[in-house]
């Protein structure tokens, strides 16, 4: 069965692009356009991995990440932060809230797919 990946990003264009890219790589994709929707979809649908933007309306990416990572039921789901903020401090906060990867926009498709593969393998 295909692994399920949740994409949380408030930019519809980026969601479209990511969705197509990831479907092409053979994964099932679900999407959310703000932090709150992202959190509830993560809890309801139990994806195998989450790609999470940082600057999100309603609930920012850091908070979503922290809430999932500090909850025993969801903390096993790998989270890749995908953000246009490229500064060291941002990556550091990402680590602190428990993100498993941090990739900056614009991203190299191979880097993103490689990270997804690596994290899904790790989990097994």
């Amino acid at each position, binding site marked *: 069965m295909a692994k399920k990946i949740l994409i949380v990003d408030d*930019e519809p*264009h*980026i969601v*479209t*692009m*990511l969705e*197509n*890219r990831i479907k*092409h790589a053979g994964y099932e994709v679900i999407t959310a356009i703000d932090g709150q929707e992202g959190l509830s979809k993560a809890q309801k649908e139990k994806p195998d991995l989450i790609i999470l933007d940082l600057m999100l309306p309603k609930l920012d990416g850091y908070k979503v990440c922290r809430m999932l990572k500090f909850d025993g039921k969801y903390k096993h789901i790998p989270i890749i932060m995908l953000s*246009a*903020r*490229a*500064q060291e401090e941002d990556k550091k906060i990402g680590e602190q809230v428990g993100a498993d990867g941090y990739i*900056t*926009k*614009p*991203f190299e*498709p191979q880097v993103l797919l490689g990270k997804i593969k690596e994290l899904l393998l790790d989990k097994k």
Partner: protein
Amino acid sequence: MPAKVFKNPHLLSFIEKNHDGIIVVNKQGVVLFVNLAASRLLNCGRKEFCGKPFGFPLPGDKVVEINLPGKSKEIVIAQMQQMSIEWQGLRAYALFIHDISELKKTEMLRAAIDERRRIDGIKNEFISNVSHELRTPLTSVREGISQILEGFLGKTSVKQKEFLKICLEDIDRLSRIIDGLLDISRIESGKIILKKETLDVVELARGVISSFSFKIKAKGLKLIEDFPRGKSEIYVDRDRIIEVFTNLLGNAIKFTEKGSISVRIKNKAKQIECSVADTGRGIAKKDLPRAFIRFQQFGRVFGPGEKGTGLGLSIAKSIIELHKGHIRVESKLNKGTKFTFTLFRYTSRELFKQYITDSVREAVRNDEPLSIFIFYIENFAAVKKEFDTKKIAVVMDKLYEIVGGHLRRQADLAVKDDQTILLVLPVTKNEYIDSIQVRLSQALSEYLAKEGLDKIIKIGYKTAGFPRDGSSAEVLFDKIKSGIS
């Protein structure tokens, strides 16, 4: 004459020598008396002035500011106040003139600095926001184009592919420009904190060169390396200096079609000098002064290859200056270009101090304690008579190994010179300082005893803790500095 007016000589000298100007005018505004300071402030002889109209409106009850001609060309800004008095039986006014030019100058300077800081802040914030905002649409454009190129949306012709590849290249270039701008704005706003470590610059340069060796070979260029023997240690931010070498070497290769690329490192008394030279197209004399200014690109290369951002040299300059070094360029059109930068070599004492300063800053920033230890050969002069330098170095290496065995965390640090070992343990609580010192001293003397050196080599120690002994690097360094040569 003023002397006649004041019967009391003390009063006269008191008024004459007053630093503030004092002038007396009658009700009609005619000057009756001028003291020395006032004649200086007005740049006018006293005899010429007495009996003439004062020329400035009287201030009344207010304190007013007036501009005076002053002695040199500079205008004197002064405060003037008036007081009603009796002068030789008639009503008159005493005017007190206080020079505030210096005060004004400092005030204006401070306001200008504040204003510049404010504008710099807005500018940097703006650049940082813009960079972020630009990256988002760039992401979907880049993804869209690469997905079409990869054939996700159907077949593309050879010509279409070629054009899409050009688009992709330029998107990546735009993205590098954005990164560069962000880099510059962070360096200029002082937001960057250098993560300094002691490293061998030759080794670092070799690493960068090897990442370019393919490109150098592919262009058929000769590589000339001229490095000193042994280590050339500097205390710098590794990634940042790699960036400088990368920028300079990348430029050299890009602008050179035939000939050679030379990388030289020279050890000088107080600094290390690194240069990257090429036999390429060079920069015209008129363009040289603008070489380090951003977005100044000379002699752009046509044809394939990564296009420049126009920011590389500007970033290199900022990085070197952040390290308190210098960078300069020499060039001749069609002959070649040579970039030279120098980095400061610290004496071990300066280096120890630098380490402590950096660690204290880090501790204050993270609100964590810091423990500092110094172990040193107390009777170094005597030991030197007994052993040669080599033998001492061997012993020091062993002692250093013992102290280094105490490193636990990644930020823990041990450095040494020929007679002193500095151990810095961030996060380690100050109450453990004494027990750590005792344990290490014991281990060191056990080793010396085992080697039969304990009669010859005496080990001393000093400790300091933040916040226990102080909260500034100065104070903490003072506490241990007697252990450093």
